[in-house]
């Protein structure tokens, strides 16, 4: 498991946020959890995460709008972004890809392999990206 990754978690459901944070903390990752698009952008003023883990259905601006805004900043153009959503139709997954997410994890997640899944997506992105992040 890659050590000490910094994760920005954008999840408005507090129970799910607690679940994801627990699973990522236990493999040594640092999680900054926020509940809205606005708070995510605020957090990114000071935080440079290795991974942005984002729910799609958020209050106010959704996960698509949020990632478009994040990607418009040069510093985050190549940051690994993963959508975690309970909208799990094929068209939802395709839309996430079109928005710029590197991958999609369907809710309900597999708790015992979630951290490994996140890490694998990050490692894959890292190996295919020109930027060293």
């Amino acid at each position, binding site marked *: 498991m890659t050590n000490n990754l910094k994760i920005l978690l954008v999840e408005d459901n507090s129970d799910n946020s607690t679940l994801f944070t627990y699973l990522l903390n236990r493999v040594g990752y640092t999680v900054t959890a926020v509940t809205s698009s606005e708070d995510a952008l605020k957090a990114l003023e000071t935080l440079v995460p290795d991974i942005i883990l984002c729910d799609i259905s958020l209050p106010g601006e959704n996960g698509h709008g949020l990632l478009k805004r994040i990607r418009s900043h040069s510093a985050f153009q190549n940051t690994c972004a993963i959508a975690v959503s309970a909208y799990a139709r094929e068209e939802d997954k395709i839309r996430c890809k079109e928005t710029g997410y590197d991958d999609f994890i369907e809710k309900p*997640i597999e*708790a015992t392999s979630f951290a490994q899944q996140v890490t694998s997506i990050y490692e894959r992105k890292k190996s295919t990206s020109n930027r060293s992040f």
Partner: protein
Amino acid sequence: LLSKDSFLAAMSHNLRTPLNSIIGFTDILLAKIPGSLNEEQEKQLQIVSRCSRQLLVLIRQLLDVGLIQHDKLDPVIDNFDINQIISNVIQEIKPLADQKKIELSATYVKGQLFIRTDKKLIRQVIVNLLDNAIKYTDKGSVSVIEEIRKNSSGDLLEIRVIDTGCGIRESDLTDIFKLYTTVSKKDDPYGEHTGLGLMLCCKYCELLGMKLTCESTFGKGTTFVIHIPLETKS
């Protein structure tokens, strides 16, 4: 107003969101990550896990019914070993058969058998048929038997799911693949069915260019057969 499929998608999302935490935390406890469990705690958590996964299956089925009705269910075609899928499903479902003291077995035609189809959908058909077979069998066995048949248009793989359960009356056989249909209430000790499962199995098979058929003798057992055309090697 939301369209019917948007409503179904929103409902599915709103049901999956709390299920994510229920299934997630249950799995964490069952994996004993926070600490050990006594036998009773483990047994009860396994019930929570099983019930929440049943709920998840139902949510997926509801969403698929909406997609099928709007011709929006697009298969994702892949090349994979069907024997591996059957073997995994058998492992997964075995505790249900063990609980009822029913023998569960599979007979394969050869070690590996690659087919090109939608893995998730064919898996769902096999899960559903086995789940039903175990549910409606009180004693005896449930078995999966593969057979390859040759016909004029090429090889055909037949996957038979055979049970020695209560069987289906002839008058009910023509309707079992229709939406919201369950067998006569008096024959069904598990009156909670939605009639979604078999209808979806039949639709998935149609969508994948396969056929699902059923033979049954009331009081003796039922055999469902998935007929899968095998691609001719070029």
